[in-house]
């Protein structure tokens, strides 16, 4: 779900009421909200944490639902979820010692029938913070200022990090 999709969902599907009910301790609402949020969290955590994506998504959702009462504006749900999911995905990926890029000789050749697998393999050659900025800028379509705020870095750092991540992805993709 892109940012725009999320906003449309919030506007049309009674999401604020669902969030308020979950905040009030209605577990039926929590379960329903989990159905809504889990796919989005999975799409954010998958490209960053890769093989540990399910663990990262689970950890992110535990944080989200433990802290759901802290969300003041239910309409801001997906932006709030995104911050937590990205943070947890990077943390889990780093913990799994995937921060060191693998041997570049191991990158598989590109092939259309294996496109999804190739994307996964190429992402696996990048550091978690590079995967995170690619997800935020290229998958979520966020602007530089928003991304730098989310990652707690300056816009200059975000810009150079994105440049290096894209260049790295391109190099690996074209090998």
């Amino acid at each position, binding site marked *: 779900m892109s940012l725009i999709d999320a906003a449309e969902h919030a506007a049309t599907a009674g999401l604020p009421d669902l969030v308020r009910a979950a905040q009030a301790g209605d577990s039926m609402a929590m*379960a329903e909200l989990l159905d809504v949020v*889990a796919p989005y969290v*999975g799409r954010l955590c*998958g490209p960053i944490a890769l093989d540990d994506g399910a663990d990262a*998504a*689970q950890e992110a*959702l*535990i944080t989200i639902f433990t802290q*759901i009462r802290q969300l003041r504006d239910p309409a801001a749900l997906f932006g709030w979820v995104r911050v937590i999911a990205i943070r947890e995905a990077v943390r889990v990926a780093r913990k799994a010692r995937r921060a060191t890029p693998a041997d570049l000789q191991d990158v598989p050749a590109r092939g259309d029938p294996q496109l999804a697998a190739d*994307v996964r393999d190429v992402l696996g050659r990048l550091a978690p913070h590079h995967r995170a900025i690619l997800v935020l800028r290229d998958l979520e379509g966020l602007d530089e200022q928003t991304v730098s705020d989310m990652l707690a870095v300056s816009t200059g750092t975000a810009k150079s990090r994105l440049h290096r991540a894209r260049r790295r992805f391109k190099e690996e993709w074209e090998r």
Partner: protein
Amino acid sequence: MNQNWPVADLDPLRRLRVMAAAIPGTDLAELTIDAPPEAVWQVVSNLRVEMPRLVRDFRTVTVTPGSGDRLVMHARGYLGQRARFDVVIRPGWCWMQSRFLLCGMAAVPDPSGTRFGFLGGIRAPGVTLLHPLLHLIGPAAVRLDRLETDVQQHLRQQ
């Protein structure tokens, strides 16, 4: 190319772990059953039969169909206590909530067959002494060992 980016799937048991971690007053028990998930779910999703088998103090259970994946379950205890549960149930996932009690079940494939989770809990902290049904649910009050027996019997009957 974005549709080819890897996606992390949160299976029903992981969802149940999220609910257990996020809701105070709940406990989650897990076990592995030597049977396919479909067979396990055929047994546990028959709430009228299986809930009194599993939950120690549920004497009888009645189920009223609802819309879609929702239904209503009425449980009655041996001392005449009653609880009305709103239920969401679909393959591999079940969540139930009454005024004071919570119950959840999830089943996912496992190399040894099925990994099954059962969550029991109390909705409102501090009401333990006030409501007669509160001690009736939770892993300590559930006979999960019966589930393996019931599933194997179900498989033999097929």
